[in-house]
């Protein structure tokens, strides 16, 4: 049977893909991104799939995928046919591919949000029922009293999240089931959870371990060739009880302030609790006295003098965590997978 899916309101048949991708005049008007989605579907069907990692912490790597590796977490259900998926990720990246395949294999609608303005994205939520994005994507979206009542399923991943984000998501997406996932281009999805915490289950404990608070995965699940039996992801965890842990970010992102290790993600989570802060990016800058000091770029919902912001930061942060330099910016630099670009 031929798959049919919708891009916005355009009905697309797989058997017509060549027609849309060719030079012939087509009867519907597709944007470059929508054509890119079709190209991806074509490469999926012909099983020639390659992605670049996001390059959050270094040079992007090219990783080959197969139909099997890409669909192991795709849920097929007749009920999903009427869903409307919001594509917040770049279609060229693995996270985007998962949204496209969910939509394509379930013959449902997909609306591109990647590269769209905040206003356009908010308007699209009048119809979107399923959305997947990074914590940064949601933070930039949730303003004031706005509620996205149509959304029934919300997935977040790609960056560490915090309690503050979960309570905001519950408020702004009141009807959504929230799923937090830990995944990467190199090994797909490893954990999923309803909270900010994860745990190792009987299902995955043969190929995932936590060693010295770092997530380590067996080479059998890593999609590129490695020599060692176990692959060190560089993602650090913090235990919240005997079985649950939260992912706190990469060891390499830690800022060493005069011997005190500062986790920028934790500081961002604390800063984001301030009601006038829309989003924040915390990083280290070299300092001849302390080795490094903390600096932050802030996007504010409304203007606040730096002196007052500093006073608030001193109140909510440990002394060595307080950013010594505050830059007010209009927006944060975000890469094509929707994550903050970390220097």
């Amino acid at each position, binding site marked *: 049977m031929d798959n049919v899916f919708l891009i916005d309101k355009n009905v697309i048949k797989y058997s017509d893909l060549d027609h849309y991708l060719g030079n012939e005049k087509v009867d519907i008007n597709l944007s470059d991104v929508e054509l890119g989605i079709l190209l991806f579907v074509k490469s999926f069907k012909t099983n020639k799939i390659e992605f670049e990692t996001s390059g959050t912490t270094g040079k992007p790597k090219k990783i080959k995928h197969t139909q099997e590796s890409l669909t192991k977490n795709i849920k097929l259900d007749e009920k999903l046919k009427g869903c409307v998926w919001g594509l917040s990720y770049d279609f060229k990246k693995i996270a985007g591919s998962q949204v496209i395949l969910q939509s394509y294999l379930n013959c449902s609608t997909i609306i591109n949000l990647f590269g769209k303005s905040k206003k356009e994205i908010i308007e699209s939520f009048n119809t979107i029922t399923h959305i997947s994005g990074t914590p940064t994507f949601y933070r930039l979206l949730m303003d004031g009293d706005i509620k996205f009542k149509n959304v029934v399923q919300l997935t977040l991943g790609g960056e560490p999240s915090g309690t503050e984000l979960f309570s905001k998501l519950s408020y702004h997406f009141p009807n959504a089931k929230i799923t937090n996932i830990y995944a990467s281009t190199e090994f797909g999805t490893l954990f999923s959870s309803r909270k900010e915490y994860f745990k190792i289950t009987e299902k995955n404990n043969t190929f995932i371990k936590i060693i010295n608070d770092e997530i380590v995965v067996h080479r059998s699940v890593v999609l590129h060739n490695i020599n060692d039996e176990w692959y060190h992801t560089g993602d650090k965890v913090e235990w919240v009880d005997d079985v649950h842990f939260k992912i706190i970010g990469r060891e390499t992102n830690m800022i060493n302030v005069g011997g005190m290790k500062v986790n920028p993600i934790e500081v961002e989570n604390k800063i984001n609790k301030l009601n006038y802060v829309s989003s924040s990016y915390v990083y280290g800058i070299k*300092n*001849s*006295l*302390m080795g490094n000091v903390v*600096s932050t770029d802030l996007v504010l919902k409304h203007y606040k003098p730096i*002196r007052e912001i*500093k*006073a608030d930061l*001193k109140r909510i942060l440990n002394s060595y965590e307080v950013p*010594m330099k505050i830059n007010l910016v209009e927006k944060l630099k975000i890469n094509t997978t929707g994550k903050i670009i970390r220097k």
Partner: protein
Amino acid sequence: MKKNLLEIINEILTSNGHDEVTNINDNDNLRDDLKFDSLMLAVLTVEIESEYGVDIFNDGLITKVSEIITKING
């Protein structure tokens, strides 16, 4: 420049719960006279570097106001 330096120092003092000073003298010791701790000194380096493009601690510890002024003047 000394006036600007005084403003920077007072900003750091007040945001750390200390009283402002009305003036600074060349011989003032940052730790003993102005009550700067390590973090306040680090803030001072960041502020001076962003204002004057000079890293005052790049070749050793600075203890006095006069040494900062010498560094800024190159």
